[in-house]
C-alpha cells in the first residue's frame, strides 16, 4: 500500500517534470528512464534489457516478481524475441513495421495492449502485466501475462453440505466468474465489471441474469456501488455495510455465501450477486429472512425431509431467540405454568443457587459466548480440546459448585446449539444479540415482557427492506404464491414461479 501511494505521488511529480514529453517517444534511453522514474526503487519489479537479436535494437522488459508468469517470459517471450529473424521476417518487418510484426508474428500471447503513456503502463506493470519497451517504437507493448496467486477450489468451509456440490468460491474473481459460468451454459448471465476503491482499485462484478432480474434492482445496485467512496475494499463485508438499507438493524440485509450453487439459485430467482476480487464471499441481494434460514440442500433433498428439516430450523431459531427468556419468565414470574412435577424438580435444582435466574442465565450465556469466540480464534489443534475443557468446567463444575442449576445448563446448551443450527452464521449472530434483549425483557416483566419484546422486534422486521423487498416476505406482505417455499419446501411441481415480490421480468420459470 505505502509503496503504491508513493508511486502515485511520484508519478504526479514526474508528470510535472516531464511536461514536454508525457508520452513515449521511441528514444530507448529516455523511455526507459521515464518508466524507471515512475516505478521508483521497488524491489519486486524486475526488468531485463536485451537486444532484438539480429536487428540490433535494444529492448527492455518490465515485470512484477511473483505476480507475472516467469515461465511464460523465459520460455516464450524472451526466447522468441531473441531468436534471429529470418529473411522473410525482415521483409515482413519492413512491410508492417516492427511493432505490428512483433504483435502479429512473434508474441504468442492472447492479451496485448499498446500504451503510449508511461503512467498507464506503470499501472499495468503493477497489476502483473509485462511491459516491453523497444528502441525506435514510440509505444510500449503491455503483455497480459499475469499469473494470479490463487488456491485450488475447495469445499466451502463455512457452509458445508451433506449433499451438493463440493466446490466453493476462491479469492480470485476470474475463477469465481468462471465457476458461475460453469454452472450452466447461459448466454443471459451478465457480468457487469466495476472497479471500486479510491486508493487501491479493486474489481467487483455485478452478476445477474438478463431477462429475469428486475432492471430497476440492477440499476439500484449499480448506483449504490458507484457511490462507494473508500480507500480500499479488503472484503465484500465492506460493500455489504456500505450499501445496506438500515445500518442500525441487527439483521443481515445482504446474504454472503461461499457457495456457487446458492448464488446461481438466487440469480435464477431474479436476485443479483456482487463478487469482489480477493474474497471468496459473494453477496446476494435482495435477501429475505426466510432465505437466511434456507440451505441449498433443501432443494437437493426430497421435499418431505427437506420440509421437516426446514421446520426444525424455524424451531431452532425460536429456541435461539426465546429459550432462556421463556425459562426466566417461567421460573421467576409464572411458576404456575410449569407442569407440577417439573416445577418441583426445577425448584429442587435451584435450591442453593445464589443468583436470580436472569443473572444465572446471563452468566452462562456469556460464558458460552466466550467459549465460542475462543474456540474460533484458537489454533486448530487446541481448539476442540479447549472447547471440551471449557464446556465440562462450565457445565459440570459450575453445577456441582452450586453456582448454576442443572436445568439452566440444559437450557443454555440447547440454545447455543440451536443458534449454530442456522445455515447462515450471520443470522445466528443476530439472533443471539436479540436473545440477550429478550432475556432482559423477560426478567423485567415475565412473559408479558417477552410479548412486548416480540412486538418490538416484529415491528422492526416489518419495516425492514432489503433493496425494496420486504425483509419478512412472503409472510408480510402475504403472498400466497410464495408460501410454497417459505416454511414448507413444496414439491418440485409447485416450484414454477419466481418470488412475486422480486418483480422479475419473467415471473414463471421455463419448463
Amino acid at each position, binding site marked *: 500500500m505505502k509503496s503504491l501511494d508513493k508511486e502515485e505521488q511520484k508519478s504526479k511529480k514526474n508528470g510535472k517534470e516531464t511536461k514536454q514529453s508525457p508520452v513515449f517517444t521511441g528514444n530507448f534511453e529516455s523511455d526507459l528512464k521515464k518508466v524507471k522514474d515512475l516505478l521508483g526503487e521497488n524491489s519486486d519489479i524486475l526488468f531485463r534489457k536485451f537486444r532484438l537479436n539480429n536487428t540490433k535494437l535494444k529492448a527492455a522488459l518490465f515485470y512484477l516478481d511473483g505476480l507475472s508468469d516467469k515461465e511464460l517470459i523465459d520460455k516464450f517471450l524472451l526466447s522468441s524475441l531473441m531468436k534471429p529473424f529470418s529473411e522473410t521476417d525482415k521483409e515482413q518487418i519492413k512491410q508492417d513495421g516492427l511493432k505490428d510484426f512483433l504483435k502479429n508474428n512473434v508474441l504468442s500471447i492472447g492479451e496485448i495492449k499498446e500504451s503510449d503513456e508511461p503512467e498507464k503502463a506503470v499501472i499495468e506493470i503493477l497489476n502483473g502485466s509485462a511491459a516491453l519497451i523497444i528502441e525506435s517504437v514510440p509505444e510500449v507493448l503491455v503483455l497480459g501475462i499475469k499469473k494470479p496467486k490463487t488456491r485450488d477450489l475447495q469445499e466451502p468451509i463455512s457452509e458445508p453440505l451433506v449433499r451438493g456440490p463440493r466446490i466453493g468460491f476462491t479469492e480470485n474473481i476470474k475463477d469465481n466468474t468462471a465457476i458461475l459460468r460453469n454452472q450452466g451454459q447461459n448466454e443471459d448471465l451478465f457480468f457487469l465489471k466495476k472497479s471500486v476503491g479510491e486508493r487501491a482499485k479493486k474489481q467487483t462484478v455485478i452478476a445477474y441474469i438478463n431477462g429475469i432480474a428486475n432492471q430497476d434492482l440492477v440499476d439500484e445496485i449499480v448506483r449504490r456501488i458507484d457511490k462507494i467512496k473508500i480507500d480500499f475494499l479488503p472484503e465484500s463485508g465492506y460493500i455489504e455495510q456500505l450499501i445496506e438499507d438500515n445500518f442500525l438493524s441487527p439483521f443481515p440485509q445482504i446474504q454472503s455465501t461461499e457457495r456457487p450453487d446458492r448464488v446461481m439459485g438466487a440469480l435464477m430467482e431474479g436476485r443479483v450477486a456482487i463478487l469482489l476480487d480477493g474474497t471468496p464471499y459473494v453477496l446476494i441481494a435482495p435477501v429475505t429472512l426466510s432465505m437466511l434460514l434456507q440451505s441449498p440442500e433443501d432443494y437437493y433433498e426430497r421435499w418431505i425431509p427437506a420440509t421437516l428439516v426446514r421446520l426444525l430450523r424455524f424451531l431452532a431459531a425460536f429456541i435461539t431467540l426465546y429459550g432462556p427468556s421463556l425459562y426466566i419468565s417461567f421460573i421467576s414470574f409464572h411458576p*404456575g405454568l410449569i407442569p407440577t412435577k417439573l416445577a418441583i424438580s426445577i*425448584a429442587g435444582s435451584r435450591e442453593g443457587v445464589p443468583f436470580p435466574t436472569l443473572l444465572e442465565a446471563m452468566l452462562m450465556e456469556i460464558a458460552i459466548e466466550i467459549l465460542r469466540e475462543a474456540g474460533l480464534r484458537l489454533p486448530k489443534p487446541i481448539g476442540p480440546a479447549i472447547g471440551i475443557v471449557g464446556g465440562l468446567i462450565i457445565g459440570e463444575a459450575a453445577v456441582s459448585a452450586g453456582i448454576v442449576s442443572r436445568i439452566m445448563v440444559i437450557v443454555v446448551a440447547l440454545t447455543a446449539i440451536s443458534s449454530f443450527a442456522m445455515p447462515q452464521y450471520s443470522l445466528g449472530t443476530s439472533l443471539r444479540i436479540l436473545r440477550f434483549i429478550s432475556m432482559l425483557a423477560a*426478567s423485567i416483566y415475565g412473559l408479558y415482557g417477552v410479548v412486548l419484546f416480540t412486538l418490538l422486534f416484529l415491528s422492526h422486521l416489518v419495516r425492514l427492506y432489503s433493496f425494496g423487498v420486504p425483509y419478512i416476505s412472503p409472510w408480510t406482505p402475504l403472498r400466497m404464491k410464495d408460501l410454497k417455499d417459505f416454511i414448507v419446501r413444496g414439491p418440485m411441481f409447485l416450484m414454477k414461479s419466481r418470488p412475486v415480490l422480486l418483480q422479475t421480468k419473467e415471473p414463471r420459470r421455463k419448463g
Partner: protein
Amino acid sequence: MKKALLLLILLISTVLSGCWSSKEIEDLSLNVGIAIDDGDQLAEEMRHIDQVSSSQEKGDLAVTFQYINTSATTPDSKGGGQKQFTNVSAIGNTNHQNIRVISLREENPIMFHHTKVIVVSGELLKKIGIREIMDFYLRDSEARLSCLVLVSKGPAKDTLQSKDPAVIPSFRLLGIVDNAYRSSRILNPMTLAKIQGESYSKSSYLLQNVYTEDGEVKFSGAGIMRGKTNKLIGYISEDDLTGITLITGDAKGGPIPAFEKQSGKPMVYEIETIKSKIIPHVKRGKISFDIKIDSEGILSENWKDSKEPSEKIASEAEELIKEEMEKTLARTLKKTQKHYKVDVVGFDNELRIKYPKTWNRVKDDWDATFAELPIKYSIKVKIINYGNTDARS
C-alpha cells in the same frame, strides 16, 4: 428530539418499574394439597403453635397445607429418607386468614398454582356448606379449577400423611382417581370447577370419600351432599357406589363378583364397556324412571369346575351377574332414594331435558318428590371373552 424523549421515557419506565412481580420459584412453597377440618373438633389434638393464630377462643376451620420440600427432591438427596413434603396446620376463622398465618411461620410464602387436592372433613361439611368453605379457592385465581375435591370421614389432615417418605400424599390421592378404569368404586373426579356449578344448582351430588388409617388411605364410598343446603348428610359404602357408577355409566372397569347358587363358588365379571340410560316417563302427571344398562365384559375368574360347554356356563354366568347387578342397584337406590331421600345420580337432569314443564312443577322440592318415584331397571350383561382358557376352567 421528541423521538429521543419518547425513547428515554420508555426506557426509564421499563427500568424503574423493576421486576415487580418477580419471585423465583425456589423462594415459593409449592402447595400441593389442602385439608380442611373442623377447628372446634381438632383443637384438642392440635399443637399449641397451630392454634395461637386464632383470634377467638376457637376457630371454625383447621386448615392443613401440604407443600413440597424442594430440597428433598433434588437428585442428590433423593432416597435419603428425607420427607418430600411438609404439612403445616393453622386454626382460624377463614381460609385466607389461615393462609396468611403460614407467612408468619414459614420462610417462603405459599403458592397455590399446583394445588392438586382439597380434602374436606365430613364433620365440617355437616356444619358448614361447601360453598362457604370453597369460596376462597374459587375466588382466588391461583388454585386451578381442575383441583380435586374429596371428603374424609375422619380428620381430613390425616389423609395428607404418609409413612413412606418417598410418597407425596396429595399426589397419591390424585393418582388413585386415575385408576377409575380399574375399579367401579371410583367416582368421576369432582373438581373445583364442578363444585362451583353444583353448589349453585339445587341438585344433590356425591363427593368421593377417603378413609385413612395410619398414614394409609383408601377411597371408600362417597359422601352425600344435599343440594339445597350444600351440606353433607351421610355416606354410602363402596359397594353402593358401584350401583351409582353403574347407573351413570361411569363404571369404566372393575370386577363384579357373583356366586354360583348351589356351590357358592365365586365367579368374577369384569366390565369392559358399559352403556346406561335413564329414561324418564310422565303419564297423567305421574313421573317414573327406567334405567337401561347394557354391559359387555370378561369372565375373568371362575372357581367352579364344570363339564358343560362354555356357552352354557357363560349364559349362566351372565344371568348370575345380572342378578348381582340388580341387587346392587336395588341396594343403592334404597339407600339414596328411600333412606337419604336425595337424587345423586342425575335423574333430575333427564327429566328436565325431556319434560321441562313437568320439571318446572316439581323442581322446587325435587329431592322430596324423587323419594316417592318408582324406578325400574333392566340390565343386559354379555360375556364376550373368557380370557385365555375356556369357560370351564
